[in-house]
């Protein structure tokens, strides 16, 4: 117990002192996860919207496929991307392996299905009368789509926040595609795993505290958005 308490207090001091190494790790984590979330949103939201709002053939199959992809382990995605970007892979000449770009690609693949699936759920929940009302008031297909999108905005925002929460806390992709290089591709989760291996708990617990604080912030934001959506 005293060991845990000691580690916890040291971690708090480390976090409070804004240790440069800790800050670098947090910065890398946030920038990689934010960029992956932005790119995935740019693809996932329109895709989810098109699937939910449009009259696509095989819609149910696509939704089933997306739901299946939600359960894909991060290490499988890591392995899959590795095959393509390793020296022997078709994208080998681009020198992506063990870079932040590779991590972003992997995380992008991880959360595109999540954002698309949650966008589909959010758009499907939008009352059908919004579409009918927009049409009878003279809106064309594009304007009607924008109305539906606006009415589903809180659900979509929740999808993006969920996706960010997923990538900031994943480890498989970051470890396999980033390589855990100090100051470059070391993220909070990979650093915590390394510190654990070394038996040095102070930095690991400090990073854990930061990660938990971020998760708490995301959840508070998520609940605020959900609350507003249900009003």
């Amino acid at each position, binding site marked *: 117990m005293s060991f845990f308490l000691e580690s916890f207090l040291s971690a708090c001091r480390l976090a409070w002192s804004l240790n440069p190494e800790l800050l670098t790790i947090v910065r890398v984590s946030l920038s990689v996860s934010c960029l992956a979330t932005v790119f995935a949103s740019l693809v996932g939201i329109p895709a989810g919207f098109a699937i939910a709002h449009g009259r696509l053939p095989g819609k149910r199959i696509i939704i089933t496929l997306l739901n299946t992809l939600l359960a894909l382990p991060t290490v499988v995605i890591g392995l899959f991307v590795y095959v393509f970007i390793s020296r022997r892979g078709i994208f080998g000449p681009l020198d992506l392996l063990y870079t932040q770009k590779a991590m972003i690609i992997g995380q992008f693949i991880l959360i595109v299905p999540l954002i698309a699936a949650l966008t589909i759920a959010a758009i499907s929940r939008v009352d059908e009368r919004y579409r*009918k009302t927009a049409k009878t*008031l003279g809106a*064309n*297909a594009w304007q009607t789509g924008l109305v539906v999108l606006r*009415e589903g905005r809180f659900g979509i925002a929740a999808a993006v926040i969920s996706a960010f929460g997923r990538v900031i806390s994943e480890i498989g992709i970051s470890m396999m595609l980033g390589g855990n290089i100090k100051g470059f591709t070391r993220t909070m989760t990979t650093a915590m795993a390394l510190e654990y291996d070394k038996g040095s708990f102070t930095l690991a617990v400090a990073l854990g505290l930061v990660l938990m604080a971020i998760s708490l912030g995301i959840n508070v934001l998520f609940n605020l958005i959900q609350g507003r959506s249900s*009003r």
Partner: protein
Amino acid sequence: MMLYALNKVLQRYNGRVALDIDHLEIEGGRIHALLGPNGAGKTTLLNILGFLETPVSGTMYFNGRAVEPVQKSLLHLRRQVVLVDQHPIMFSTSVNSNIEFGMKIRKIGKSTRQRMVDEVLETVGLSRYKTARAHELSGGETQRLALARALVLEPEVLLCDEPTASVDTENQAIIISLLQQINAERGTTIIFTTHDRLQAASLAQHTLMLENGRMANTTYENSYACTFHHNEGSQVRCILQGITEISLPAPPPGRPPIQTGRIHIAPEKITLERHEPQPRNGSTMAGAIILLMAEGEKIRVVVNVGVLLVVLIDQARYAELRPAIGETICLRLEADAISFLQE
């Protein structure tokens, strides 16, 4: 020229026929009531008239021009016809933005938009809610806002699906007077659906009846679920809604000993008498008068004979009889007053 003309219009949902109209013409500039029970196809017809649904077959003319099921053409037509739902939904923005929506789409300038929003809010009596969130309005206010959102676009046709069904009496009166005002001042054609025969009679200049997706020649009022009891000989007793018994002049189709079905008693084929008439081929009964109302050339009399029976008599007969509310009166059904309805 008729505003709408529909020929052989058929609409199906999952193989089930929702609407099957052989021929229908609707004149412009008037208020039309669309009467019918639940599932009669009223909302489907409104959606088709509002160009929100395309029928699976049939031809439709609007202002003498054939309606082409092409998006561009339908969009142009939709901008002349606005439908107000029975349970209208407001965009999750302010009252002002909700009303502005259709005008923005029509690219009307901001200053004109604001002037028109102010005017229409004044008309529907919601000026004080201009900046309020639309979702915060009550049911009656929402209905009025939905009307405002439609009226601000000055449509040629205003379609209203049960405009007063889910609002209180105060809001009902406001909505009815608003519809009359819009029709009188702007000449807007108004087509509204209702279950309420009295409302249809008081508000509309023309009434259309739908039953099982088809245009009906008679009102569905005086339609009752009943049980037929075949007595010895050819006499058949009919128990209306398990309460009131009448004798049928002719047996219903098929003759099991006890049979259930629906009958319709034509309101104009019931004769009122001060004294018990001698039964001839029809059936007689007595009941208290509970409502008297002028309806065009006719007088509507509602008599409680166990079930409420509507009778339509002409004004001369009314002047002769001078019936009063609460008075007991005798009714005689003509031989051809009763018809058997298909289930």
